[in-house]
Structure formats: C-alpha cells, structure tokens
C-alpha cells in the first residue's frame, strides 16, 4: 500500500513538472510583459533594464529552473500587474471560484439526476421531450451566450437577479470570504451557477437516463415488479441506486473541470474568482500569475486523480496483487 502511494505521488510530481514546463514554454508566445508594465514615455534603455531585472532575458531553462526552485518553496513571486504576492492574490480569489464551482456542481447533480430519472420513467411524455430538447440547446450554445442571455432576461428585463459581481461577502476564518451568508451574495450566485452548471447538468441527465433505461430492462427489476413492490421502491430503491456508481465517478471528475473551466463564466459575470484573474493576467502577460494558476489547476486534477486511484485501490482487491500499471 505504502509503496503504491509513494509511486503515485512520484508520478504526480512528474506530471506537475511537465505542466510547468509546457506552460512555461507557452509563455514565450504570449508576448512581452514590459509593454504593458511601463508607460509610453519609458525609453528603450529603461525597458531593456527592466527586462533584465525581471530575468526575461535569461535562457529558457534558467528561467524555468528558478521558477521551479522558488515554487517548490511556495514562492510564486509577485504579480507584474497588481504588484501583490501571487500566492496571496490566488488565495484571495479562490473562495469565489470554489463556492461557484460547488454550487453549480450541486445544481448540476440534483437537476441532472432529477431530470434524468424523470425522462427515463416518462419516456414519451411531452415534458420529457421538452426537457430533452432544451437540454440539447443547453449543450450546443456556448457558455458565453448562455450567460449573456440569462443576464438580459433575469437582470435587465425582469430585474430579478444581479447581472455581475458577487454581492456582499462576509469573512469566515482568516482568508475565506463567503457570499453564501448574505442575501445579495446568494442572489448573485444563481445566474453564474446555472451558466457554469448547465453543461454538466445535461451530461449527468443523459447519463442517468441512459443508465436507468438500461437497468429498467434487467431481470432483477422485472423480478422486483413481479414480487409486487411499489413503483417507488423499484424505481428509486433498486434502479436508481444501481445507476449511481458511474454517475458519481463522472460527477467527481467533472468537479475538476468545473473549477478549471469557470474562466468564461467568471468573465461574463465579472465574478472575482481565479478564472477571471487568469484571463486578465493573460491579457497583461502577467507571467507569475499565469504560471501559478496553471500549477494550481494541475494540482487540483492531480489530487482528484490520486484520490480516485487510491479509492480504486481500496475497492478493487486485484490491484493489490498485481504490479500496478499506471492507470488514470
């Protein structure tokens, strides 16, 4: 067990280093940070001096190595744009993203399962058809458009919900500020959470529906019905329970991508999370923030995969016997 964990941890470190290397080599194509850091009066000599001081003229491997060496000590440097320590910036933005991801994950899961079960049981109902059609639109429209559409309907025309921002936030603990405890904070969450969760909801719904239809055809369901169990017990006690294993796996894995892909939703709703921070940093060529963000996302995926692997290990006894072939 211990050897397995150590091996997996070692692999995780390699993955992180690979991500750092790839992202670092991409930064060379994002542009020159100096242009956005100094005013137009700055002379060419001063620009060159600043470039030198920031180490932008160093060879690629030297820059990469000094980044990794400092990152290993938790030091990601200082933002070129906001002149604050990068770690502090990201930590101050992370709660917004995590709350949004969590709420939209819950939304996607509850509605996805609910609609999935309903459309599986009432296959020919007009409501089922309506849900299926609307959900198709939900996956085919880009997130950006869905967000803008929701803003027009609910913020501008109906004036029910705020169009941007996170509302009022209150501090919980040292660095976590939550919007969940205030009325305006909760209202502000609704539109972005729907925008971000719509795709996942459709995914879960279709998965649940397909699995349910499959399970409902099996012999043990027929047998349960023959025994005279209530519809409720058959559908939820037996059928749904057995469809949930893959659904939970998918939901867990999707959580990572909700966090990583909240970038567009955060931009549309001016949500002050790490995704919006990343986009602004790309525009500004704020290399320290970009690097730290990509490392963070890589870390989230690596940790989720690690946990999944460890769970498989705990669940599947065969893994304990055979030598592990790296599986993801």
């Amino acid at each position, binding site marked *: 067990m211990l050897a397995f964990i150590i091996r997996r941890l070692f692999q995780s470190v390699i993955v992180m280093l690979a991500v750092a290397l790839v992202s670092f080599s991409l930064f060379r194509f*994002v*542009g*020159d*940070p*100096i*242009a*956005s*850091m*100094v*005013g*137009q*009066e*700055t*002379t*060419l*000599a*001063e*620009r060159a001096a*600043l470039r030198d*001081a*920031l180490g932008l003229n160093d060879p690629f491997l030297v820059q990469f190595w000094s980044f990794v060496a400092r990152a290993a000590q938790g030091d990601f*440097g*200082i933002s*070129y*744009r*906001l*002149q*604050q*320590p990068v770690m502090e910036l990201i930590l101050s933005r992370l709660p917004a993203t995590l709350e949004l991801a969590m709420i939209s994950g819950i939304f996607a899961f509850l509605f996805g399962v609910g609609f999935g079960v309903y459309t599986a049981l009432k296959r020919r109902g007009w409501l089922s058809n309506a849900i299926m059609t609307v959900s198709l639109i939900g996956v085919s429209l880009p997130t950006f458009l869905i967000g*803008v559409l929701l*803003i*027009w309907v609910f*913020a*501008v*025309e*109906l*004036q029910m919900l*705020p*169009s*941007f*921002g*996170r509302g009022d936030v209150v501090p919980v603990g040292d660095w976590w500020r939550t919007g969940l405890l205030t009325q305006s904070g909760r209202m502000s969450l609704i539109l972005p959470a729907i925008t971000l969760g719509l795709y996942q909801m459709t995914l879960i719904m279709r998965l649940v529906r397909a699995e349910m239809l499959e399970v409902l055809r099996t012999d043990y369901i027929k047998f349960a019905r023959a025994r005279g169990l209530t519809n409720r017990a058959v559908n939820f006690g037996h059928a749904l329970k057995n469809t949930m294993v893959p659904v939970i796996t998918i939901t867990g894995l999707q959580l990572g991508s909700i966090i990583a892909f909240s970038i567009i939703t955060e*931009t*549309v*709703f*001016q949500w*002050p999370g790490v995704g*919006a*921070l990343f*986009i*602004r940093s790309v*525009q*500004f*060529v704020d290399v320290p923030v970009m690097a730290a963000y990509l490392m963070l996302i890589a870390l989230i995926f690596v940790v989720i995969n690690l946990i999944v692997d460890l769970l498989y290990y705990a669940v599947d006894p065969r893994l304990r016997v055979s030598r592990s072939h790296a599986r993801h």
Partner: protein
Amino acid sequence: MTFQMTKGMRAALMAGVAGLALGAASASAETLRWARVGDALTLDPHSQNEGPTHTLNHHIYETLVGRNVDGTLEARLATDWEIDPEDDTVWVFTIREGVTFHEGQELTPEDVAFSLDRARTTPSGMAALHAAVEEVTTDGNTVRVKLSGPAPLYVQNLTNTFIMSKAWAEEHGVEAAPNFAAGEEAHSIRNTNGTGPYMLVSRDPEVRTVLRVFEGHWDEAPEVTEIIYTPISEAATRVAALLSGEVDLVQDVPVQDIARLEQTDGVRVVRGPENRNIFFSYDMTSETLASANVDDNPFAKPEVREALALAIDRDAIQQVVMRGESQPSAAPLPPFVNGWTEEMHEYSQPDYERAGELIREAGYENGFSVDLHCPNDRYLNDEAICQALVGMLGRINVSVNLVSQTRSLHFPLIENWETDFYLLGWGVPTFDSQYVFDFLVHSREGAYGAFNGTRYSNAELDAKIESLATMTDLEARDGVIAEIWEQVMEDRIFLNVHNQMLAYAMRDGINLDVHPENQPRMWSVTFD
C-alpha cells in the same frame, strides 16, 4: 422582418422596465456607482503611468495643476506657477495653504518637493516626465524646480504627478515608488493618504473600491459623497448593469451600443473627443521590406505613400467601422493640442484611379504585397479599421496580409523594428506637438524616437525638434512647430485615420463631461 419586430418590442419593454428601476434608484442621489472596463493597477501615486490608475488616484490624491475638460490647466495644489523671471531654467510653484491630508497632516512645500523627487526617481513610472529635473528645493511657501535647461512646457508634465505626505511615506517605509522588478509589495499599493476630495474606504482590487467624501477638503464640497467603483471587463455585462440600474455610470461604452443606449429611456450618453489619434505608419527608410514580394521598399517611394493617402476612405471608416464615433483627420494630432491647424486636419476624398496610377508609376505594374500588423485589443475597433484598409488597398493592387494580434505581441514589433506596416494610436498628455515629434518623428537615439517605427531620420528636423525643448519664446516656438509639421505632412510619415471619440453612458439626471484624457472627475458630477 419578424426578428426586427421582436427586437423592437423587446427594446421597448426593456426601456420601460429600466426606466422604472432607474426612477426608483435616484432617491439615493449622493452615491455614484461607477463602472469601467478595468481597474487601477495600484493606488501608489507614482508607480504606474497608466490611464485608469491615474483616473482613480485623481480622486484620492491631487496634483499641482490639473487638466480641465477643455484641455487647459487649472490650479489644484499650486495656486500659481511661473518660470523664474531671473532664471529661465527654474519653475516656481506657489503651494496652496490650508490643505490637509486625509490623516490630518498639513500640506507643506516639503511634501511637494519630496513627492516630485519620489516621482522622478526610478523605479517610479513617472520618471520619464521629469527627466530634465535637476533639483527640487523649497523657499517659503514656494517650490522651485531646477531643470537642466529652459523648459517652457514642464508644467504640462505635472497633471498626473500626485503629491503625497512625506511624514506618511517615511512612517510606512514607502519613500520610493514600489519596485516590482525586485518583487516587493509596498504599503502604498493598497493604502492611501492624499489631499484629494475623496478618502479610500475599502479596496478589493478588480472587484470594488469604495471612496467617501473628505470633509476637510480645501475646495467646494462635491455633490457625490460616495463612489463605488466597479470594474466590469465584459462589454455586454457592463451595459446590462447600467440598464438594470445596478450601476449609475459606465465609462467605457462599446461603440456598437452607443446608438441603442441613446434611445433607451432613462439613460443618456455624453461624448467628446479623446486625446488619442489612430494612424498607420510604415518603414519608409530600409532598403527592402521583410514581408514584401518586391525586392525594394515601396514605402520609400513618395508616389506609393501618396497613393496610400489617396486610397484610404476615412469617411467610410468613420461611418461603417466606427458608427460615426470618430473625427477623421489627415494629421495625427487631436484638435486641442498646441500646433494643430485646420489645414493639417483637412483630408482628401479617395481617388482610386489616381492612386492606382501612382502605384504603376512607382514601378509596380502588378502591385505588391506586404504584411500589416495590427493590435486587436488596444484601440476602439482597431482590428476592424485594419480590415477596412486591407479592402481599400486591394483596389489599388496593393495586396495586404493582415496580422492582427494582442497588444503585448504587437507593440514589441514597433519597438524592435520588426514590422513594415503597422497601426498605432498616440495620445498627447502634454497637449503639445513636441511630444509627438519626440517619440514618433525624431530618429531613434537615447530618449528620442522610441515609437518611431518608420526608421525616418532627418538630421535637420531632429535639430529643430531638440530645439523645441528649450525655447522660451512661445511664439517663435509655435513657428518651429508649424515648420516641423509641414515637413512631416509633406513626407507623409503618417497615414492618419482619425481621432478617437469617448462616450460615457449614465442614468438620466447625472451630469458629467467627457474628459479628453478619459479621466472623468466624479467631484464635478452634478445631479438634476
């Protein structure tokens, strides 16, 4: 047809709803919720020489002199300024008395001298504007700035140089501007102590900054007593926030929304010229062009440059690309800048036949092709302007390959002389032509010519440009400026498109003028 009707009905419904909500909101008239595309980068008064940063800081800190909406100077912390009658290399500023900082310190000439020294010392972003300063001293209630030579326009460089308290800076260890190259975070980045009309209440960078009126301010009390400043980067969201009544004023209005907002009940749009010209320029000096399919440099030939000038249809760009929101002009100079003349402004109508002839006369029977570099996130509709030019030049057999990219990739091309043909926008913060000549016309050497991507080099003109800096006879100086412009226009260094327009959208009942440097002053806001 159906779509049109639906759209119209929707707009009417929307306007009605927006009107209701806006009417209800005007009860709390003293708070102004202000949204724009991006946030100030820092609150440090000297760290960054950047528009949005200055705009916010102007509410907290003050400068010796300010810029009025008509481009003239106004007295802020200096009540009077003049060149010392006995020594034309010294500027003398009389400091306003009875001014206090937000934390209660009295403003002294020492604070002013300290601030000017802080601003001119690297790593301050303002240093370039004060490069000619040799020494700053105090004398009674005046501050004397000694320059390396006569500098008749030095005072024009002070409109964004803020004054801070020396005692406060020493107390918090921010005697110098923050050095981000060294990876430092300074107290002054998120804390302030200015003399301005508003005090900082809270700041959450890129989320929300709240300012409250400073009761001890020396000037008349403003009508706006609280400012809530929110950056909203997405254009559609910014406009939606105004229509839904969540913000009162939007500073960066997308061009395509201006006409619609004007027709919306409860919203008004004010517009005015910005201090920024958009123009094309080209390498007119090198032997050959890297991206051209001919083995000489077409832009080096006057016929070709004239042909380009005849092929650009500025009115079409104004009407189609800018939807009327621009001032077409032949010279890259906003009308309120010293040196501008009606004559320079006049532009000819396109004449494609003659332009085509000129291209053939220049020896390009089959035309030629060249790359055009263009930013796509820096100026209003920058990429669309370039696309329009590609079509226009196509008509005279010049086939242009458009390369449009983000600004951080675009500007280094000009800096490193890696582009043959490019789009650039230029503002004139000193409101004097010399600024344009220094950066765009003078050969590239030392502090001169940093944005001279044309490689244009004219020793005679360089000497004239350098002489401007020290001429104290302003009439004679204006004469030299006119001479330089004449040469610049004759040589067609710039293929100017237009001066950008600014538009602010706000709910009815708010009065605010457009500021030529896009630095609106919320203390000047009045309510109906």
